[in-house]
């Protein structure tokens, strides 16, 4: 593109220094990187100096930490998940009682009750207070966000299978599919040891197991238990309700799964904050430059 622009007199290379051989990209993992060269790791946020080097007119192919499809589906999931949590909690306060089995109502004994007031006066909560009723827009938003989540999950899931993303980055590597690998990585975290070289480009065994559980168990389960509450969907696919153990069981599990995903999100964000929040944020938004920037 830039060569085209120069030929047509539309512009000039922005940085002449950058085109001199001495200034070619020094990032590890990119073409032209010579590991025998003396490489002085900069301070913790040295990425800015490295970034300038990438502005050479002939851009070497930069290996981004996260592929663009991962970054887009990640943030669509974040937006949908937050909308689902907010609207879901709004919906739940209209009947903060939970049951097992197919049916449950105020004439039945609940499995447990949230110790909070309700947004409807038909529910005996023992409180002399009633939340404002926000079920209308909450339900609209909940199902719209659910569509965003499900469609995003489909795109990500199909791509992950076809591209080998799951095989390469999510399923634990051969030799680490055992408890001792998980425990030894956990011990490393507890010692606060620096990450391995390998972890620059992909995930360690603990991250892989966590993402495996989140992607292939928690999200599918929360979607299925959600669908198991829909009268028309269950009419069309009665097996869903049977698998979930009845409508009220599905509702109770949906509630627990929400909290497990919230717990995941808190730990996920905490780990990012500990390992360098803005660097990680750049990696998952604009792509964050080369893999070399990571964990440096």
């Amino acid at each position, binding site marked *: 593109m830039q060569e085209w622009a120069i030929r047509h007199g539309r512009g000039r290379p922005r940085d002449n220094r950058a085109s001199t051989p001495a200034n070619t990209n020094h990032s590890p993992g990119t073409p032209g990187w010579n590991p025998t060269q003396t490489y002085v790791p900069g301070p913790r946020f040295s990425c800015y100096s490295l970034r300038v080097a990438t502005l050479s007119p002939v851009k070497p192919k930069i290996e981004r930490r996260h592929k663009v499809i991962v970054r887009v589906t990640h943030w669509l999931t974040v937006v949908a998940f937050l909308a689902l949590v907010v609207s879901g909690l709004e919906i739940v306060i209209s009947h903060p009682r939970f049951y097992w089995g197919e*049916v449950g109502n105020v004439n039945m004994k609940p499995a447990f009750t949230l110790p909070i007031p309700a947004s409807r006066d038909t529910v005996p909560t023992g409180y002399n207070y009633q939340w404002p009723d926000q079920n209308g827009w909450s339900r609209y938003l909940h199902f719209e966000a659910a569509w965003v989540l499900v469609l995003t999950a489909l795109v990500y899931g199909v791509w992950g299978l076809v591209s080998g993303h799951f095989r390469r980055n999510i399923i634990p590597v051969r030799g680490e599919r055992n408890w001792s690998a998980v425990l030894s990585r956990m011990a490393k975290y507890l010692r606060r040891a620096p990450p391995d070289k390998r972890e620059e480009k992909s995930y360690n065994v603990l991250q892989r197991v966590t993402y495996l559980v989140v992607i292939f168990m928690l999200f599918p389960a929360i979607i299925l238990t959600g669908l198991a509450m829909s009268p028309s969907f269950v009419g069309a696919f009665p097996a869903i309700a049977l698998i979930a153990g009845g409508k009220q069981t599905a509702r109770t599990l949906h509630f627990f799964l929400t909290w497990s995903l919230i717990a995941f999100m808190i730990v996920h964000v905490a780990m990012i904050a500990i390992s360098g929040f803005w660097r990680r944020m750049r990696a998952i938004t604009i792509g964050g430059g080369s893999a070399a920037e990571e964990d440096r």
Partner: protein
Amino acid sequence: MSLISRRRLITTGLATAAGATGLGVAAKLSRKYGLVPPDCKGVYGAGETLTYGAERLFARHAMAREFPRSMICEKPFANEIAPPTDAFKRMQARNFVDWRLTIDGLVEHPMTLSLADLKTMPVHSQITEVSCEEGWSHIAEWIGTPLSNVLNEAGLKPGVRYIYYRAVEPYLWETIDVDEAMHPQTLLTMGMNDGDLPVGFGGPLRLRLPRQLGYKSLKFVIHITAVDSVKNIGKGLGSIDPEAGYSWYAGI
């Protein structure tokens, strides 16, 4: 870098044109096959259209689950109802012999039926679940005559797309599409668990739609009208639900 090559411009242009045309055709087909709900506009319109469209595309004729008699709830929960009017109380005192159901609109034979008339029609009973949008549910046996019997008797004219139904309180009204109205489980309910339908559950006449949430199953039904459009009813959103912020289609 903001320069755009000619090839890029042409491909992007063609792709956009193809996408726009595709969307236009999809919208037209969706409308033709009844996949677009009346509350398809606004911030939540897209999600609502996907939900309703997907259900109508893949499960238009699916049946709501029916349960064994052993699963009928001993103490079903009657949701709160508006305090009955004096006129209602007078009819209740006379055991609802004056209750009339009017069927009009785009029908060959407009008619007015008493409960006795309705009871001469083929009786159907179903053990289905009431699911409230709040989250609670209960199972009961519901006895009555399918709405399709009444609509067939009245004779729907071509072009009917929605069935409007209204409660004895004039401000409580709903519409459903014709598929939902003609569905075999859409029941003009007069009995519950081997007795008359109690007032608390919508007696003497409730339109039960087991494939949708409880709020679509209007209690105290007195008027049914066949219409070709919902644009001129209320705010044109299909029922009082979207006017109060709830979705028109309640199959979810």
